[in-house]
Each structure stands twice: as C-alpha cells, then as structure tokens.
C-alpha cells in the first residue's frame, strides 16, 4: 500500500471539477430518497398511523438518510470512477506524477464518501423541515461521522466492482441485484422483527442493516442494543473493502 497525503490532491481535483455540476448533483442525489420519503412516508404513513409510538415518517427518515449516502457513494465510485479511468484516461496522467495508483484510488473513494456525506446532509436538512431530526447536536455529529463511514464502505465496495467492470451495463448487476435488494432487507422501510429466522440472519450480514440501526438510534436518542457491534461490523467490512478495492483497482490501472 503506497498511500500518501496526495490522496487529498485527487480529492481536490474532483472538488474543482465538481463546482460545475454541483446543482445538478443536488437534484439527482435528493431525488430518489425524497421520492421514498414522500410516497412511503406521507402516502403510506397515512395508513400506518403510529409506529412504535411515533409517526411512520420518524421511522422512515433515519433509514432513507443512510440509504441516500449509500446510493451516492456507490454511484460515484461506479460510474464516476469508470468514466475517469476508461474514457477520460485521467488515471493514466495521474500515475505519471508522484501521485501513486493507491493515492488516486483512495482519493476517489474519499470523494465518493464526500458525495455521500453531501446527500445525507441534504436529507437531514429536508427531514428537519418535516420536523424529524436527531435529538441532540451530539447525535447530529454522530450521524455525520456515520455518514463518512458508510460513504467509505460503499465507495470501496463499488470500487471493487469497477475494478473488473468491462462496461457500464455491468454495473446493473451490482445495483439491481445487490444495492436495491439491500434497501428492502435492511429495515429501512419496515422493522425486521417479523422476518422469518433465516431472513433475519441474512439481514445481519448486510452492512446497511447496521447503518440503519445506528442512524435510528441517533435520531431517537435511545441506543439500541448492539450499537457497538454495529459500528464494529461496519468498520471491519469497510477496512477489508477499502484494502481489496485498492488492490484490485491498482491491478486494472497498472499493467
């Protein structure tokens, strides 16, 4: 692992180019989660009534928020990175400078995480307008930290997929078969209590399940049991994904 502070330069390059797209990405990264909040939260919520003593929207917001982080960082490190690697040849010019391949890849993951953080923060603002927000400032900070962790995790997982993707279409397998189902198996829209045993067991392996748990605790201020384990699971998976993502992507870049 030949990592250095130059990760920041790669991040900075993305930031400079981002200023031209910033408004369009706001619309895009808010679109889908907002759609979930409105349809499920308000539409379905009207039928659901109270949910654990609070309106359904309060149940829904923490999960949708971490999902929006997941989606943004995933898409950035799938499509965004793929374009830079194959069409723009940007990585070829990067690695001819003192920036190493590892720096470049880690910089992309960091950028994906940042995009996730922006999406999540926007959701937080929107939810606040809907009168749903974490119980304290400390919990807001905790939530922001969580977003960074989830961003790095899903950015790294996406990097692994990008490292062997032959073309854009390949990404559909990952988003349709893994990311979208994860939304429904991780307790974002309904609690997992009434899942049969094997489905509960399966859900425990999904990183989003743990992220949703932490997020929900941050909003409600009631620490759920196993909060530490949730964090531990995310950090372990994230470290592995980050390492493997860099190794595999480096193999694609350097021949």
């Amino acid at each position, binding site marked *: 692992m030949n990592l250095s502070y130059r990760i920041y330069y790669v991040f900075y*390059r993305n930031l400079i180019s981002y200023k031209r797209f910033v408004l369009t990405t706001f619309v895009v990264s808010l679109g889908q989660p907002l759609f979930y909040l409105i349809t499920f939260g308000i539409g379905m919520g009207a039928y659901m009534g109270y949910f654990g003593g609070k309106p359904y929207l309060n149940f829904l917001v923490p999960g949708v928020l971490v999902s929006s982080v997941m989606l943004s960082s995933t898409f950035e490190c799938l499509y965004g990175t793929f374009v830079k690697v194959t069409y723009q040849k940007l990585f*070829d*010019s990067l690695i*001819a*400078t*003192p920036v190493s391949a590892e720096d470049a890849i880690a910089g992309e993951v960091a950028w994906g995480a940042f995009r996730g953080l922006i999406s999540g923060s926007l959701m937080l603002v929107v939810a606040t307008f809907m009168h749903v927000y974490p119980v304290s400032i400390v919990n807001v900070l905790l939530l922001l930290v969580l977003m960074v962790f989830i961003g790095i995790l899903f950015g790294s997982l996406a990097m692994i997929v990008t490292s062997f993707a032959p073309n854009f279409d390949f990404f559909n397998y990952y988003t349709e078969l893994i990311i979208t189902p994860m939304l429904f198996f991780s307790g974002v829209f309904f609690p997992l209590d009434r899942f049969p045993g094997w489905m509960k067991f399966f859900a425990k392996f999904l990183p989003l399940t743990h992220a949703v748990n932490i997020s929900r605790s941050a909003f409600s201020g009631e620490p759920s049991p196993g909060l530490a384990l949730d964090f531990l699971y995310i950090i372990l998976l994230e470290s592995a994904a980050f390492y493997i993502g860099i190794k595999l992507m480096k193999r694609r870049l*350097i021949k």
Partner: protein
Amino acid sequence: MNSKNPVIVAKNLTKKYGNLTAVDGISFEIHEGECFGFLGPNGAGKTTTIRMIHCVSPITSGTVTVLGKPSHIDNREIKLITGVIPQEINLDPDLTVYENLMIFAKFFDIPHIESKKRVNELIDFVELESKRNSKIDELSTGMKRRLLVARALLNNPKLIIADEPTTGLDPQARHLIWERLRSLKSRGTTLLLTTQYMEEAEQLCDRLMVMHQGRILKEGSPRQLISDEIGREVVEIRIAKEEDEKLIAQMADLACGHERVGDTLYFYCRDGHELMKKIVDFNLPNVLNRPATLEDVFLKLTGRSLIE
C-alpha cells in the same frame, strides 16, 4: 556537446504480458543533454519501454535506472523529476486549460504562488494565452498537444519523455512542437522521444535506436545509421521483376547493395553517379536518384511489408 553522464541506463530490460514478449532484454544508455530517439513500427515495444522507465509499468526482468535511481512502480522520486508527453491525449476534460495546469502542479507539490507563476509562463511558452479559460474540448488537436507539452514542463523536469508527440498534427503545429522541444534541449534537458516519423527523428535526435519486435536492431546517430546501412544515395528503378537479374549483373562492379520491393528495384550506393551513367545507357523509364534518408534505413531494417 554530450557530456557522457548517463541519465538512463537499461540492462536486459524485459517486459512480458503473459506469453507475449513486448520488450525482449534490451540494453542502452542515454546521456545527459542529448535527444535520444526510439524508432520503430507499431508494436515494436517503444511505449512499453518508456512506461517502464518512468515507473508506470512493472518490469518483468532486467533493470533500468534514471539518474542512478532504479525505476520501479512505486518510485515517486523518478516521477518527480520526469516530464511525460503522452501519446494519448489525457488532459482533464472537466477543467479549463489553466485549471489543468494548476491541478497538475499540485500533484508535484509545487506551492500555489510558484505554480501560478510557472503556469502563466508555460501558457505563454506554448502560445495558448487566448485559450486560458477554455475547456479542453474547445481546443484543436494541435492546441491539446501543446498543452501536453506545457503540462510536462511544470515540474522543471531533468528528463522529458515524449511519446509520439506530434501524432495527428498538421505541419505548422508539428514544427511548433519541434521548435519547442529543440529549445528545451538547448537548455540542457535530456529528451527521450519515440516516433514513427523519420523527419521528426532527423530533426530532433542526436542518437537513436531502431526497435522491432521488442529488440534493438541498430543504434547510432541518424547520419551514421544512414551511411552504415544504406550509403549516400538511393536509385529507385520501377521495372518488371524479370529484368532484375540482368540489371544487377550489369551493376555488379559498382559495389551497390540492392533490394527488390514490390514494383521497385532499389540500389543503395556510396556514389550514385556511376550507376546513373550506366542506367542512362539502358534508357529505362521511371528512374529516381535521391539522397539516402532515415526512412530507407527504417524500412530496410524493419522490413517493407505491412506491420499490423
């Protein structure tokens, strides 16, 4: 002119992709302040060789050093002192001309104030003042190539590697790039150039090597290569193949080399004068007597048939 300090030393440098040997155990030295050319057809191993030199492609076996430091994939020191003009235009399309250079300067740890000054100088140097705030896709190919030259100079490199820097350019743009490269050489920068254009090699290179199928076929100055391989003059005669034997026998006492390629019989001579006198007697149509060029050397060494 050439002090003999070696800048690049390669020993048995080899690169294999699976079963394919792209570079086959080549050894060479490039000296400080000279312009050294890699000449060869597509697939000769030129680009692979330079990618190993500037540390972006792993070496299968053998070694290459840059200013005494061994090249390997993680050597940031070599990348820090090398400027690369790539064959493929890989400018950042999301950024303007100015931003492209400023960001690149950052990659080399150049402080912001220093970068600003250098970027402005370099934009002048490659005559892109009017395009300073243009996006990359608003530039012509010639402008893009000039910007690549400027980008390669940001870190004041001791070594410049130019991989077919004038591919796809019109003659005006090509001459401008040549002129800029010559002016760098006159400042003492060592230049490594790969090219398929013989004129480019003759214009720029002090020494060159002809590569083919991963090996070095010949090495020397352009003039020396021409005189060793071809002589001074070439006589091209477009006649039917059946006439060859008779004609060659007639010229035997003149000590010229000969070669038949397609519809043409070539004679390579020290002095074409005597040969021409004889040929006039035969009263042949379609005869051309011209000075030998690097292109003759290239074609003789790498074969005149198409290389895919």
